[in-house]
């Protein structure tokens, strides 16, 4: 019997259609995936189901009864508990206060966290708790309400693999108890492993409900992208799967970035060099020092010890401006850290360029337009909603963060999880773009929380564990098993 039945649900903001007409049916006792490319309308549908926004059309039924979900608290009362992409914890309250705020029993949440083997200090202010833990708290809080349906919106995107495992265990348990889970993710492997059925959205409509285990990853992608796009993708995928190496060029090129015995925060002495034309991967579990490494290179934090040099010149950035001037630029995982959300695409792309302008005098608009246009073109940014960057989909926002540096020029690109929360199609475009940049002589340092990306993207991969480099693998050899071993510091394998 179906637990939740949404029929022809739609939502528009003025002329912009966020969700055309989507139907979704979740059975009792199933883990159901909601899939779709960025901007397909997944988040909108979840927000409608949980009362964050109100639908314009269609019906929602819970156990055959029509319901009107007018607010998140109403959703919670009728047994729909969401865990959103951004943790819904108030930063200035302690964890315990946050839980009491939602009128959930603190001990019940504590119990849930203990079952998941997650250790949380309830007296800590939520703003001081690391993001992955916040998501686990959010999940425990949702579960403590004992809802009929858990809605998990990209919960695994920011989780290290060990915590993700525990989320899967929770989903299993929920199914065993005859409850349901609506699971939203971009990681198709998780969908195939975990979900009984999947509903695919495309351009604001549902295009089919399928059984992922039977149909396989490739066909799911086809559903998500649509028939024409999928054929094109298939070609792109074939090219992708035999990773393009800038091979010879990389060998010959001079070292661009040289890091020697770098120490800061949890980083306990790291040395490596990065050559022009090379994509160097950094693989690590959560919190092994990768954040500090990227922060120091981007000039966001000062090193506590060690040396950095760019093309032979010693570098000690005291401010991101210093790093940018030396050609080191950052593409962060959290796009809103890099963008001016209320401003236009054009302004966002042009912003870093203003560094290089003379202090006085007008900006040359023709030159600016030309550079911005060529960056938009190169990245195939969808500019329908270009007046405010915050209205773009996640994938397009990420393209804008890269486009900024393309327009202003750079030497070394620091990509910190650049594909987090981005759909398959856009991901591939980004891989191809990175490779093209490297072929044109850029050096790229690449961190990702998705291990399958390393062999596709990188020439070499370093693994970081406990603030030290524990291994170096050639790009092709960086399959998940060997990466995982090295990431846990288990082998000291150095590929030639």
């Amino acid at each position, binding site marked *: 019997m179906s637990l939740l039945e949404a029929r022809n649900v739609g939502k528009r903001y003025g002329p912009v259609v966020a969700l055309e007409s989507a139907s979704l049916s979740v059975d009792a006792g199933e883990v159901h995936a909601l899939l779709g490319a960025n901007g397909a309308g997944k988040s909108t549908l979840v927000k409608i189901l949980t009362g964050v926004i109100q639908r314009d059309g269609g019906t929602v039924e819970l156990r055959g009864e029509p319901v009107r979900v007018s607010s998140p608290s109403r959703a919670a009362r009728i047994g729909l508990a969401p865990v*959103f992409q951004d943790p819904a914890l108030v930063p*200035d*309250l302690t964890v315990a206060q*946050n839980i009491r705020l939602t009128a959930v029993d603190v001990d019940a949440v504590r119990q849930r966290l203990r079952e998941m083997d997650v250790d949380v200090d309830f007296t800590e202010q939520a703003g001081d708790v690391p993001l992955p833990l916040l998501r686990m708290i959010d999940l425990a809080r949702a579960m403590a309400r004992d809802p009929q349906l858990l809605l998990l919106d990209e919960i695994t995107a920011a989780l290290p693999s060990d915590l993700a495992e525990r989320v899967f265990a929770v989903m299993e348990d929920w199914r065993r108890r005859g409850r349901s889970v609506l699971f939203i993710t971009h990681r198709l492997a998780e969908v195939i492993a975990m979900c009984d059925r999947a509903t695919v959205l495309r351009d604001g409509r549902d295009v089919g409900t399928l059984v992922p285990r039977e149909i396989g990853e490739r066909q799911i992608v086809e559903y998500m992208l649509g028939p024409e796009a999928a054929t094109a993708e298939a070609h792109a995928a074939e090219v992708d799967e035999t990773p393009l190496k800038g091979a010879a060029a990389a060998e010959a090129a001079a070292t661009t970035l040289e890091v020697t015995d770098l120490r800061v925060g949890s980083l306990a002495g790291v040395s490596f060099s990065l050559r022009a034309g090379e994509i160097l991967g950094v693989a690590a579990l959560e919190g092994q020092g990768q954040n500090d490494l990227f922060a120091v290179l981007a000039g966001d934090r000062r090193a506590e010890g060690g040396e950095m040099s760019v093309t032979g010149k010693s570098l000690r950035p005291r401010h991101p401006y210093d790093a940018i001037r030396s050609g080191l630029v950052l593409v962060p995982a959290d796009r809103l850290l890099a963008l001016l959300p209320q401003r236009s695409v054009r302004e966002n792309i042009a912003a870093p360029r203003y560094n290089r302008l003379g202090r006085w005098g007008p900006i040359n608009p023709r030159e600016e337009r030309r550079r911005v246009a060529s960056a938009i073109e190169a990245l195939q940014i969808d500019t329908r909603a270009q007046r405010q960057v915050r209205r773009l989909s996640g994938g397009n926002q990420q393209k804008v963060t890269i486009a900024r540096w393309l327009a202003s020029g750079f030497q070394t690109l620091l990509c910190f999880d650049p594909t987090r929360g981005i759909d398959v199609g856009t991901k591939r475009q980004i891989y191809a773009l990175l490779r093209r940049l490297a072929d044109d002589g850029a050096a790229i340092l690449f961190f990702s929380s998705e291990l399958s990306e390393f062999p596709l993207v990188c020439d070499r991969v370093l693994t970081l564990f406990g603030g030290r480099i524990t291994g170096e693998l050639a790009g092709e050899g960086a399959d998940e098993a060997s990466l995982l071993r090295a990431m846990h510091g288990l082998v000291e394998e150095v590929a030639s």
Partner: protein
Amino acid sequence: MSTAAAGVAARVRPNPARLARRHGWTVGVYVLLLVLLLYWQTIPANWGSFDVQSLAIDALPLAFAAMAQSVVIISGGIDLSVGSLISLINVLSAKYMIDMSFRNALLFGLLLLVGSAAAGAFTGTLIVLSRVPDIVVTLAMLFVWAGLALEILQIPGGGAPQSYLQLGTGHWWSPWIPSGLMILLLAFAIFWLPLRWARPGLALYSVGSNRNAAYLSGVGVARTRIFAYALGGLFAGLAGLALSATSGIGDPNAGQYYTLNSVAAAVLGGVALVGGVGGLIGPIAAAFVVTLVKTILILKGVDQNWAQVIQGTLIIVVVMIGGLAIRQRART
């Protein structure tokens, strides 16, 4: 209440670094107040209980105004109409209380408090419904309340029964315990403490801290914001009544002083203008600090205009030191 018990049990676990982090500012303000008090009592030739009482009298309305402002700022708003609402309550009470018995005066005072909370709720509702920014709506309400106050009493006048004045200017038990101070503590204990650690108080902080997260946590954001302004209105009403009790008259322009000084006291007391941070204990002390600095400068014979310059400088220095301390912490 097992949940409350768990919360309390968790809270008492000692962690000095965190305690310092969370309450450092408040402690700092009280240390500053103490230093000023110690210095102050050396200045007048025969300093005594009379000086203590006049300090309490001077500071009482500002302390209430600071509470009014702090509640609103914590919830993520700002209330520029605090001062003129104080004027309005002040002239209403002075105009009508003058011939009343003590009992009737008290009842009328209660009525005014209800009215002033309703006025705050009205402002809050206007903000929530119109979606016009807080600062714009409360600026408009500043003019509305100020105009009404002038309509009720064109020139300073009116008064209150002697027994009522005693509430603001008298003392309890010993001449060292000003009754105004006790009423302040009482109001704090009745109107704030029960809220602070209960759900309405948490809702207040959550709305100021991150409105979206609060909404997703099931907090009625609109309701909470209106509630914040209503509570602010209540404290502003107390400030207005305190003003009539301490000054003995109604003055339609007397409230102006409190509009920006309440913001100053809130900020000095550790309430962050971005919302969600701070409490009322700090701003109360800050109101005394602001008043005491003024008193000391007068005693020292410093020119009035320079006294203002010094007061402004003090605010910047204190907030800067607080900000530096926070940044220092973030680095470690």
